[in-house]
């Protein structure tokens, strides 16, 4: 088990290295990432991840809005029952959660893939 002890919580000193870095061995790669060429990859990764987040969020919100719209627009749907329970309750009280889980799972998979592609580009093993 990897155990990392954090000994100094106030290690952030303004002006100097803005965020604490424990790995000095990786400094050369830090420099490479901060070069103009490295930043092209970093910027492209950030854009890709942001686009992914926005697409998943928009898709989820569309489905979220579609549920009550469907109930309102399809006559008799809200009054129908499913296994003895009112359909509108089942749709909003149960049916949304799988959509949340699926969106999250899709996001995590794609985000990890984006990061793997970035690693390949910068030659990280």
């Amino acid at each position, binding site marked *: 088990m990897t*155990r990392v002890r954090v000994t*100094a919580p106030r290690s952030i000193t303004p002006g100097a290295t803005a965020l604490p870095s424990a790995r000095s061995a990786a400094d050369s790669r830090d420099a490479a990432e901060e070069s103009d060429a490295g930043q092209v990859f*970093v910027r492209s990764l950030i854009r890709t991840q942001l686009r992914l987040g926005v697409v998943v*969020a928009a898709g989820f919100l569309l489905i979220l809005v579609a549920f009550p719209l469907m109930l309102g627009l399809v006559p008799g749907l809200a009054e129908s029952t499913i296994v003895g329970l*009112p359909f509108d309750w089942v749709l909003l009280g149960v049916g949304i*959660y799988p959509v*949340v889980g699926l969106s999250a799972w899709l996001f*995590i998979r794609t985000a990890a893939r984006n990061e793997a592609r970035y690693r390949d580009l910068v030659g990280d093993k």
Partner: protein
Amino acid sequence: MNPVVGIAAFAAVSVATAVIGFYGLRISRTTGDFYVASRTVRPWWNASAIGGEYLSAASFLGVAGLILLSGTDALWFPVGYTAGYLMLLLFVAAPLRRSGAYTIPDFTEARLDSRVVRSVTSVVVVMVGWLYIVPQLHGAALAIRITTGLPAWVGQVAVVAVVCVTVVAGGMRSITFVQAFQYWLKLTAMALPILFIVFTLAGSGTPAVAAASVNPTAVAPAGLYQNISLLVALLFGTLGLPHVLVRFYTNPDGQSARRTTLIVLGLLSVFYLFPTAYGLIGRMFAPVLAQSGQADALVLLLPGQLIGGVAGDLLSALVVAGAFAAFLSTTSGLVVSLAGVISQDLFGGSVRGFRWAAVISAVVPLGIASMTGSLALAGSVGMVFAFTASTICPVLLLGIWWRGLTDAGAIAGMATGALLCGGAMVAGAVLGAGGPPSWLAQPAAWTVPAAFAVTVLVSRATRNRVPRTITRLMTRLHTPERPLVTER
């Protein structure tokens, strides 16, 4: 209800909490342990702990009560509480973990290279935390009054005392075990009674008193604007909650922060099926609870109402235990994160300072709670989400994704959000008697865009203040961690 049941249930939960807390004490030694459990907490433990901490009085009591009153309209509450974590996963989880910040003020200070921003963020975080603890204490007061007949303040003082003892003793490490235990306790306490009720009702063929769609009271359901505004508050409020964010530091890296969030989403989805079931059964079989103004106590009263006898008492004891687990876990989570913020800014981050800060963080809301009357639980927690969404959320989201954010923009945005949303809360409370207009009662739909707009505009106007460290920071936030080679 038999008063012994309530007292026994509360005592059992408190003892269990304290025992697990002291067990944790033996493991936590360094300052790092005290703050964030030294980042050695496994995803399942961490996710259970996040679930335990997040499911507050509002989720345990308030949601079911609101569903009893407002029917399908109130289903947006559990959906929003869960979907808020989806937003957290999409936009915050991994970058925040990679920032290496312990608390939100740590993050804003590092991101904007400004001590002033740190102080302003600290003030906002402490306000959010206190606002959030108050409804927990109101919930405790309600539960103690209903289940034992003791005066309401006994519940509030008891919760604060237990929280202070556990937090002061063990810090984050013991709290992680306590919270994880409390998630499973809450789920059991919620699920067993309602399953028992459903099977009993189905077995005996008891006919429903009313249809699920029948409004049990004369109170009009919330309109479209209120539902949208509520969703905005819940979706964007979750990702700014201080006790939620501090948990992400306990993940070893960004990808595991994402995995933890996925597990949390699963845990929350399962949990929220049950308040929904209570609300539905309550509407069909016990609408009288809504008519007598006891909607918030629905979860506590339903087993006794529908089952009765020894079985009813036992199930009641279980829900009371779950309710106290909810008050204790959310309050202690908030106290830990507030104490982290207060002690770093006031006491220089020592363990001793953390203990003092913990006591301050718990006692101030006790004072506020004893002076204010109880509102509907889910509603008052909804206001806290609106406040977070209008203050911390814009700075966090823009700070992670937009290079152009400046310290001036962040401060202006937080101030705008706090003034608008805080003003709406105060105005709503003053106008309280006849019920405030919906745009004041549920302000997130206009305060959140306003805060975002001000943050962006002021940042654009002060473009020369973008910190020089920005390139390094954005790289750190968004690029995957390298595999650790030196540490073992």
